[in-house]
């Protein structure tokens, strides 16, 4: 056998490595290109429908109805928005939704803190039993009709209360808030406050809540968006049109094709065209408030998902 020459072998190895890394570099380049193409596709798939909706909402009734609109407005017009904002049902739905969202979120946040904070204290006797009972409601429920019967017997049917109270507390939000109070606020602060003479309520108001602002913002946003977007409670609990939230009004117009007040348009064809256009404008109107604040809150939402991963 030839004598073993370390220098030589290492040279060969280095050369091989160099060649391999050239290959690797090439493969990587191609791969990165593929990644960008893939992501651009994702982007397009999400974005194109949204653009189409917005473009249509700014087009003329005739163009929309004939299916002539693509990704840019055709015969630019604001007729859709005009009709939408003149419709008293839509306006009242919008105002109702604002009311339900503000009031509901407020009540939900207060109740969630009221349950999560005591449960976050380790020496709160009965806390683990209460936690179990609350989590259990996530796994099992009496169902639609028995709940409906309770709401009915409380006299809440067809009142704004039905929109705010029956689903006021989300178990997930409770778990999140409890974990935050327990893990993100050092227990020494609580002990210091006890030595300083602050009772539980004063500790909550003066120390825990100010320190839990990020978490409270997250759960408030969760509740608010849920309230703004839901229609089911309204569908089953509200009869009177005047109480309907925007989503239910939208459902009637967008999906059930209930004709809304189309103003002065009298001709059959014109009515149909306007009805088509109105849908696009309505989608934009109802979604813009949420999507406008979304970029600012997305970060907090992401944080909220992470908070949840702090084991409950």
């Amino acid at each position, binding site marked *: 056998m030839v004598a073993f020459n370390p220098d030589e072998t290492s040279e060969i190895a280095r050369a091989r490595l160099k060649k391999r890394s050239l290959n690797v570099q090439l493969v*990587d380049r191609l791969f990165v290109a593929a990644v960008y193409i893939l992501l651009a596709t994702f*982007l397009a798939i999400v974005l194109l429908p949204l653009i189409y909706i917005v473009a249509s909402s700014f087009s003329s009734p005739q163009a929309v109805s004939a299916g002539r609109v693509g990704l840019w407005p055709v015969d630019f017009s604001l007729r859709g928005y005009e009709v939408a904002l003149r419709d008293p049902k839509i306006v009242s739905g919008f105002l109702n939704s604002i009311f339900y969202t503000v009031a509901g979120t407020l009540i939900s946040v207060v109740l969630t803190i009221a349950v999560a904070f005591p449960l976050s204290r380790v020496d*709160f*006797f009965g806390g683990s039993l209460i936690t179990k009972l609350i989590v259990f*409601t996530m796994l099992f429920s009496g169902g639609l009709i028995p709940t409906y019967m309770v709401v009915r017997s409380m006299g809440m049917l067809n009142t704004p209360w039905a929109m705010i109270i029956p689903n006021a507390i989300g178990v997930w939000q409770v778990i999140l808030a409890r974990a935050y109070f327990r893990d993100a606020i050092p227990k020494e602060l609580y002990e210091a406050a006890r030595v300083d003479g602050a009772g539980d309520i004063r500790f909550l108001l003066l120390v825990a809540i100010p320190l839990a602002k990020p978490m409270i913002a997250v759960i408030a946003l969760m509740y608010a968006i849920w309230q703004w977007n839901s229609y089911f409670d309204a569908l089953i609990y509200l009869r009177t049109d005047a109480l309907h939230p925007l989503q239910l009004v939208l459902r009637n117009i*967008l999906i059930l094709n209930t004709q809304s007040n189309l103003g002065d348009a009298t001709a059959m064809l014109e009515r149909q065209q306007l009805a088509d256009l109105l849908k696009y404008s309505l989608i934009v109107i109802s*979604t813009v408030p949420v*999507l406008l604040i979304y970029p600012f809150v997305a970060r907090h939402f*992401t944080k909220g998902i992470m908070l949840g991963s702090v084991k409950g």
Partner: protein
Amino acid sequence: MAVSENGDEIDRRGWRYRARRSWQRHWQLYLLILPPLVYFAIFKYLPMVNAIIAFKDYNVVAGVWGSPWAGWKHFSSFFGNLVFWQLIRNTFTLSAYYVLASFPIPIILALALNEVRLRAFKQTVQLVTYAPYFISTVVIVSMTILILSPRIGLVGDVFGLFGVPAVDFLGRADYFRHVYVWSDIWQTTGYSAVIYMAALASIDPSLYEAAKVDGASRIQKIIHVDIPGLMPTAIIILILGVGNIMQVGFEKAFLLQNPLNLSQSEIISTYVYKTGLLNANFSLATAINLFNAMINLVLLVGVNAVAKRVTGRSLW
């Protein structure tokens, strides 16, 4: 146990003492938690009690307790009904299809985003794909209907490009599931990817360095570092999906329903709504609901047992 030194000690063990102490110290907290507890009692636990009407012939006048017992009548009439198997099949198929189809896509998105070094591009993609999550179900469904509409929708145009007559996706029962599942994936992929992005961010950086030293290509790095790192999260999400398989939400299916697709779009929750609130058959609707809830509970408990085995962590 140790014998007390002053007779006082035994008194300080046990739940009675702890309960009394806790009350002395935290009475404010007990007052604070009272309203939420009342809420849970009334709106979550009272309905569970009311669910007893599944075994009764409920009528409004007699009330829950005054109504005559009916035994298993409503259950057997449901099991004997022709729609029973159709409902089970529709619910299960829709859900299984959704769980399987929606599982890999957020992972792919997260892995791809993780490869991007251009911050602006990465953030744009994240922000845009995340956005639909915040759109309401009503709006998503109407967008779907509008876009898929052969007459005015975007899809009509696409078919037109190829000179093929447009398909009426909403007019045929066979398409219902695809429409339901893929519109949902469109809405939630960006959101789900966030969870995987977090899992990727928490992978030990030294693993990447090791891969680099070994001269691994990016694809090899993904296969050997990223994907194993995602596994625990992915398994939990998949298991959770399986646990909820008989629990398809009412909101979207109900909105997408029309007389033409009912044979596939009628699921348990929509059927319960119609039986109970539209046809006012409270007892039957409650029986169906109860049956479904029991299946869910069994599935969830079973799935949790599996999760504990696989991941060593309980889901609750």
